[in-house]
């Protein structure tokens, strides 16, 4: 029994050591890591297209993150790194593609739809207001209605 307790204690002790060892290299370049994550969150992983480069486990994503780290280490600016990716993989890698003729519909489309919706709503409200404003019954009709009501009451 005592032996087992000792064993467990030893195991736990070494687990702690192993963890600490794994975390150490990260701490050395926290700044690089932070920038790398910020940049790679702006980029699409082309292997699994609905994941960002920072979240993807695809091998290409790992390679590209390594490349980004390297470029940060070389003192490249964020823009230079983004340009590097766009030059190789196209605007599609960016979650926020630049505004240019081929992406006008992409950027403007939602606003076009919104404007269309607002126009339809205004047209609808105007038509309804007109219908409401119109006198429901003419003088002649009012008299006939009153006569009918009198008839059914008597």
């Amino acid at each position, binding site marked *: 029994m005592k032996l087992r307790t000792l064993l467990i204690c030893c195991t736990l002790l070494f687990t702690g050591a192993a963890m600490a060892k794994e975390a150490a290299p990260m701490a050395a370049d926290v700044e690089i890591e932070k920038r790398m994550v910020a940049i790679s969150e702006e980029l699409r992983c*082309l*292997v699994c*297209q609905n994941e960002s480069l920072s979240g993807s486990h695809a091998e290409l994503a790992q*390679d590209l993150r390594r*490349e980004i780290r390297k470029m940060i280490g070389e003192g490249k600016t964020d823009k230079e790194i983004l340009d590097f990716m766009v*030059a*190789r*993989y*196209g605007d*599609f890698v960016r979650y926020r593609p630049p505004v240019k003729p081929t992406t006008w519909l992409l950027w403007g489309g939602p606003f076009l739809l919104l404007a269309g919706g607002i126009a339809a709503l205004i047209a609808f409200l105007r038509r309804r207001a007109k219908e409401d404003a119109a006198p429901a019954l003419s003088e002649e009709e009012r008299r006939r209605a009153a006569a009918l009501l009198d008839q059914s009451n008597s």
Partner: protein
Amino acid sequence: MKRFLIPLAVFFVLVIFLAIGLTLNPRDVPSPLKDKPAPAFKLPQLAAADRSFSPADLKGKVWLLNVWASWCVSCRQEHPLLVSFSKEGSVPIVGLNYKDQLPDAKNWLAKFGDPYVLSAVDADGRVGIDYGVYGVPETYVIDKAGMIRMKHTGPITPESLQKQILPLVAELSK
């Protein structure tokens, strides 16, 4: 009548958009490298590690660069087509062995046939990044001036070979 026509028209516009969407291939990302010079590299050859290959070696020729790996399932799918096509000898195919293990790559070629005039070894995938490789197999058509004229992502099919690659190669070879 009008109140039914408008939703119906909207519905048909939606159907048209969705139908177009279904025929598009989301994997087929247009390469920004088209009509740009093929990125330079210098890599060892698979068959002879002491010899190297760089795209400049083939200047003045139209050639295909085919990115492949022994771990890549779709490569196996397109491979027989490449092997039979290479026998025609109409255009040299250079292989780029992407992130592979040397023995695996050599075995693979021995087993399934070697359609390549040579394969360059891109062990860490760094050259692949320069070529914007994101899904093996990929094939590039490179012209006499060393410009990338076309990129085909995914396995080559008999159809894409006959309808896209060969006509382009014929035109570039003039």
